[in-house]
């Protein structure tokens, strides 16, 4: 399954509860090329307000430094 098909499949999942949503998504991902790609980025997610964003600033610096170090 290519990237666009994966997106469309996920958007159109039918489910009744969260564990079922997870299982449906897992099946889609398992047959998708998403899982075959080279993963090299770091994502930090913060869907909240200004204060929380400021309070995250210090650890963002440490995450970046950690990732930049030779592993």
């Amino acid at each position, binding site marked *: 399954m290519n990237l666009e098909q994966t997106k469309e499949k996920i958007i159109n999942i039918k489910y009744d509860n969260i564990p079922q949503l997870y299982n449906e998504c897992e099946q889609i991902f398992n047959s998708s090329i998403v899982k075959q*790609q080279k993963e090299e*980025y770091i994502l930090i997610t913060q*869907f909240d307000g200004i204060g929380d964003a400021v*309070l995250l*600033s*210090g650890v963002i610096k440490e995450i970046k430094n950690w990732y930049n170090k030779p592993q």
Partner: protein
Amino acid sequence: MACYRTVLDVFKNNPYIDEIITLSEKNYLSVEEAIKDSMSLIYNELWIKNKFILHAFYLQYSAQNQLPYLFNYLTGTKNRIAYNENDYFELPGEMSIFVTFSVPCPKSAIHTVDRHYYLFEQYIQQKFDHNIYTYSSIDIIEKVKQYLSKDKINVIINIGGSLQCKKYPVKKLNKILAQINDNLLIIGGIKELEDSQYITYGTNLVNKLTLEETIALISMCDLYIGNDSGMVHVAAANKLSCIVFYCESEAKENVFPGRLSAYKQFYPWKTKFIALRPKYSLSPCSYTTMVYGGCKIHNKSHCIRQIKEEDVLLAYEKINLMEN
């Protein structure tokens, strides 16, 4: 970095962030709607640009916000790091199904900064000094310099706040400002426009600055006086001394502090500050079930109005004498 568009200005000058993708802030009425918006962003900004994630962090300790758990999972990321959301009350957290690494948040880690760091420290098994920062561009700094005084103490007066109950009454604040002979810079957002008419001292910058400009201006000031909002953290990050009004009474702060005390989770980090709080909550907040932040009359200045003008002026005199 994935965030709401409304906080983009906080992150945009951060040299440790290479790219920011944003969602519009909204209260999703269904998981389906959240999936649709998330997938659209992930597909357009990550997948088709050949960007695939190795580690996805959601470091906030929150029981309410399910979107980051889902979003990180939908990116297809192998390593998804987040708190198991309900550790404090030891209830099953259904969003934990989307997480591959989680640790319980210890009761000793109450402040939000400590919590953010704790999860990352556990993940990589390394300790750090816990700090916060803000970043501004030179252009914006030059632009807001016009508001600063070279002779007087530059004081940010923040009349903004996410809820009315977190706002100190502006008429009382105006009486206090009448007695402070410094360069007073009044800030707030569009919601504070009406309130700002009652402030007759200082320079009224309410709804006149962008968030980016506000951050730059605060970073160059000496003192913060105002409500408990995101701006107090900007001030703390820049080591301003802070005098902060809280609606949460002292009597409430130890009722499930890690869950319900806004003060204990969000006091100004690593800077000199005086917290002005009512000793006790007003009725009905005083005797009914404790809510987050202590005061449950959200649509007006309620418990917070007990803070006396003379106590604010006393704090103003005292703060410069305090050691860091």
